[in-house]
């Protein structure tokens, strides 16, 4: 295009300007080769690379560290919860009603049979208060195991010439257990085996 229009343009321009046009003509100049400095770029890339690697390493290390800590803490938690449970068990053992009752009994406490209430507002007493006595108390421990008859034979009684009976067996007959009841008034006879 320019090759076709340039002569037309030239021809149309006044001859006077020909020299100026001649001067203004573009000419090819040799290319100037600029060399960017390499050092900063290489440094940047190396730094990035190094930073990345070191960062990754640090990150990984810290994660490992966290994992170690987690393991240690988990173990500690397990130990502590086991410890807690052991203490809880100990507590339950101490709170066992049987143990508490035995401890109370050793201090001379008895379970009262007649409940009575004191109204703190009016001072009125309801129920029939009576001092608790050991007599009506309940046996709270299991009776001792009875000896089998083989180990606890009847005492051998010998009649001496004087007629008095002696016991050879020094232990004598077994003592009545204190859990043995005192037979109260029997409301119902026993001789006739009939439903009642």
């Amino acid at each position: 295009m320019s090759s076709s229009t340039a002569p037309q343009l030239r021809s149309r321009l006044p001859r006077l300007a020909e020299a100026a046009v001649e001067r203004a003509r573009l000419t090819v100049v040799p290319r100037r080769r600029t060399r960017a400095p390499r050092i900063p770029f290489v440094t940047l890339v190396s730094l990035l690379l190094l930073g990345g690697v070191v960062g990754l390493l640090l990150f990984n290390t810290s994660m490992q560290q966290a994992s170690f800590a987690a393991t240690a803490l988990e173990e500690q938690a397990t130990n502590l919860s086991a410890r807690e449970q052991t203490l809880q068990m100990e507590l339950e053992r101490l709170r066992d009603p049987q143990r508490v009752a035995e401890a109370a009994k050793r201090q001379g406490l008895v379970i009262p049979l007649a409940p009575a209430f004191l109204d703190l507002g009016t001072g009125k007493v309801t129920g029939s208060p009576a001092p608790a006595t050991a007599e009506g108390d309940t046996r709270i421990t299991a009776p001792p195991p009875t000896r089998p008859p083989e180990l606890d034979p009847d005492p051998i009684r010998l009649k001496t010439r004087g007629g008095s009976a002696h016991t050879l067996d020094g232990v004598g007959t077994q003592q009545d257990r204190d859990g043995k009841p005192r037979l109260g008034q029997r409301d119902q006879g026993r001789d006739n085996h009939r439903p009642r």
Partner: protein
Amino acid sequence: MRRTGSLRPRGRGKRGRLRGSPLVRLRVGFVLIAMVLSVFSARLVQLQGIDPKSYAQMAADEGTVDVVLPATRGDILDRNGEPLADSVDGLMVVADPLMTADRAPEIATFLSKRLDVDYFATLERLRVEDSRYQYIARQVPATLATDVVDAADALGYEGLWTQRDPVRSYPGRDVAANLVGFLGTPRNDGAARALAGLEDTFNGYLAGTDGEARYEVGAGNRIPLGDNTVTEAVDGDDLTTTIDRDLQWYAQRVLRQTVLGARGDSGHAVIMDSRTGELLTVADYPTYDASDPYASAANDGLYKSAALTDVYEPGSVEKVLTLSSLIDAGKVNSRTRFRVPGVLPRQDRPIHDYWEHGLINLTLAGIVAKSSNIGTVLAADEFRRGQLRNYLTGFGLGHRTDIGVGGETKGLLPSGELWTDQTEDRIAFGQGLSVNAVQMAAAVNTIANGGVRIDPSLVHGSALTDDGAEVGTDHVDERRVISEDAAWQMTQMMERVIDPEAGVAPGAAVPGYRVAGKTGTAQRVGPECKCYDGSFTVSFAGFAPADDPRFTIYVVVHNPRNGGGGGSVAGPAFSKLMSYTLRRYGVPPTGSHPSRLPVEW
């Protein structure tokens, strides 16, 4: 210089011959390298081409661990949240005999000192041949087990380690053991083995679901960013019962003293909240220690709730049901007069009273107060056919209470052709039918609750049994069996039983309170002959305060050998339990005067 100069070419010539020409060397080198590389590539093809997944799997497995996240078994609690059964992390100590055999005596000494295990048994286990897995101790509290194994490591004993083995503890020992049951030695994987009681009935409800975790480890630590899947464990639910642990404890002690004192075989004591039907106590004697169930061979038959699983004939306590039904049916009232002969001849055999008497004039209240069989049968003649049975069914006899205890009996209430006139006569005073103790307590509680029977319950709220039934206080039904007036008349008559002059059970009185109750002494079907063998079942059922009942208590003693009856054996036990319960729950006396209904005319 020359010399050396002359020597050099010779030496070079020799080496040159050894090395061969460079071309040859190059070729040999290429061949060698090619051979090595082809070995590598063959191996590569083998690894990557042929079944690469299994190798990848093996590599992953190397560092992957599967861990079971154990679900905690739910506790069994009493009504105040006190534990009747709770779970504790436990461990088992396991030995590898291959590693322990050499130093077995030392290790056995150490273990027997620290773990309370038998020295000789341990020694044997540490020396078992061809085994790499021997239990040393099971269900050891976790802290103790880890301490011991750590100490063993420190002493240089190798081949001991621990493994999960949950411990179930029963802090109350024999308290409510009959209801709670127990777990046997866990299976090897640590799963519970429920053997009796609530532990068994609600096994699924209590157990929960184990979770699972899968992750990669390196040197005992979890590898971050490695494979990691976790399914959380679902813990079992707690089972809250309506039992009051302290009251249950006291009832068991009173019952034991009562049974032993009467030289009886066994007994039950049931304490029930009259208004809600909640069972505060279901005690059995004999019972066992749930924390050591195998302590005695005699424990064998005891792993049950005898108050629910055993049947017996209730005797005169049942008259309460017969006579209140009669009043409800409008046939009699508490002042109706009866002429009671000394003997009442009936179709198959004459009926007697327990005491000798001629013709006496008793009111209905007197029949109750004196517990007259003849009077009861005369009164019960007023029933239309089938009416008594309907009432008894209404009171809940012949049906399970379904409170959540396995193996419950429904009792025995004759029906159809078996219900003859003779049967009806006997059933009227409590023979010829069988009940369990909780059933009977619930029936008597109907009178206490103004004629409305309320289902007894053992579980607070709602819980699902393994059989798929929802039980608990949320599922309690009420139904009116007799009118409020009939219940009140019956209550007044039952008060006369406690009266020192009119009644037969003054021993059941609670000082200061109005108490209504009824004795029972029934012929007992012996275990050997399956017939009435001359032994008895004595019982006392009652409630207090009579004019505003809060608690119903039922005490039963089987086969007392001291000649006592319901009033003298079970009555005092009732009195103790009632006064304790009233005090414990802060129920003051109502202050009104007890009934003075005439017993004679």
